[in-house]
């Protein structure tokens, strides 16, 4: 029997202004905070979030915080490494933050694939995102982030660093 390589996951609940569930798809309109509960569990080790998004007018990063039982992990335990390419310029950097960065929204429609390794395990979590944004019409931003606490999380909050965003996302469990 063929084994599906990933499983579509329906959150137990979502919250935030302009945020709703359509089946398993999280739909958001002019959202500043997207709370997603009950998506990480012992069933899977690794997850993929596929998100398409458009900001209202500014150029926000898409940021993320792990959460458990509806409470975000807000301490400065996240480390970010980024790689960007715009025009002929390529650059990178590393910083310590109170959030993970998992995408960049600017101008028109864009999207990001966010891989999350071990969020429901009692060990540090790693993130890796591959993103396209419409900044200057086309722009690459990739991020690798870690979260250092050995806590098991069951949810995630996504939010723009400024402005608000409109779009949709789906979450898949990848491995066990």
């Amino acid at each position: 029997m063929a084994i599906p390589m990933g499983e579509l996951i329906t959150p137990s609940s979502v919250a935030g202004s302009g945020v709703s569930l359509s089946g398993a798809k999280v739909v958001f309109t002019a959202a500043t905070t997207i709370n997603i509960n009950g998506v990480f569990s012992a069933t899977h080790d690794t997850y993929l979030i596929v998100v398409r998004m458009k900001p209202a007018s500014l150029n926000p990063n898409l940021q993320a915080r792990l959460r458990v039982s509806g409470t975000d992990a807000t301490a400065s335990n996240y480390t970010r490494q980024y790689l960007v390419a715009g025009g002929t310029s390529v650059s990178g950097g590393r910083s310590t933050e109170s959030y993970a960065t998992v995408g960049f929204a600017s101008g028109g429609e864009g999207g990001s694939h966010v891989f999350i390794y071990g969020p429901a395990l009692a060990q540090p979590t790693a993130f890796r995102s591959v993103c396209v944004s419409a900044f200057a019409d086309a722009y690459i931003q990739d991020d690798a982030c870690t979260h250092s606490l050995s806590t098991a999380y069951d949810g995630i909050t996504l939010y723009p660093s400024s402005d608000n965003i409109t779009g949709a996302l789906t979450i898949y469990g990848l491995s066990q």
Partner: protein
Amino acid sequence: MANTGMLVSMKPTSVDHSGTSASVNNNGGVDFSAVTSLSLNGVFTSDYDNYLMVINAIKDVTGNVTLGTRLSVGGVEDSTANSYIMQSLIVSGTSYTNGNRTTENTWNTRSPVIANAGWNGLTYHIYGPYLTQPTAIRAVTGIATSGAYIADAAGTHNQSTSYDGLSFTIASSITGSVHVFGYRE
């Protein structure tokens, strides 16, 4: 058992090509041999927002070649001038500074991505092609040039049109396979 897998094979309703051959295989992918153009029709639908496209190909004669991509609807390519913008990120050896942005009537890779030196792998993430809004793509690559070479890209298209397919144009013939998947919602 209900199939709750992440990816759904999007079997083309038809394919068109220039060159030796192109046909839909039993899994819903397309095998092609010595083609210089290839069109996949009916691979985007209202069932899914986002898609994954996997290409495995080799150039048929010595050298390497860029890959041009256009969205299409009903088998007709959208060739609107200056509507396709592509940002490249090229990494070769210790050099990673060869980024570039192009605005053309096709998504044209800035760097050759199909080499004769070996088989090349290209993964395209495609966001919202069937929606009546601009489409975004992100390419993640492994190229055989110089043994191993990265030629990633981010592309946007500025037309708010619903597309059901895409087409490739190549300056020199290539052989390989391509498969489009929808992300289950």
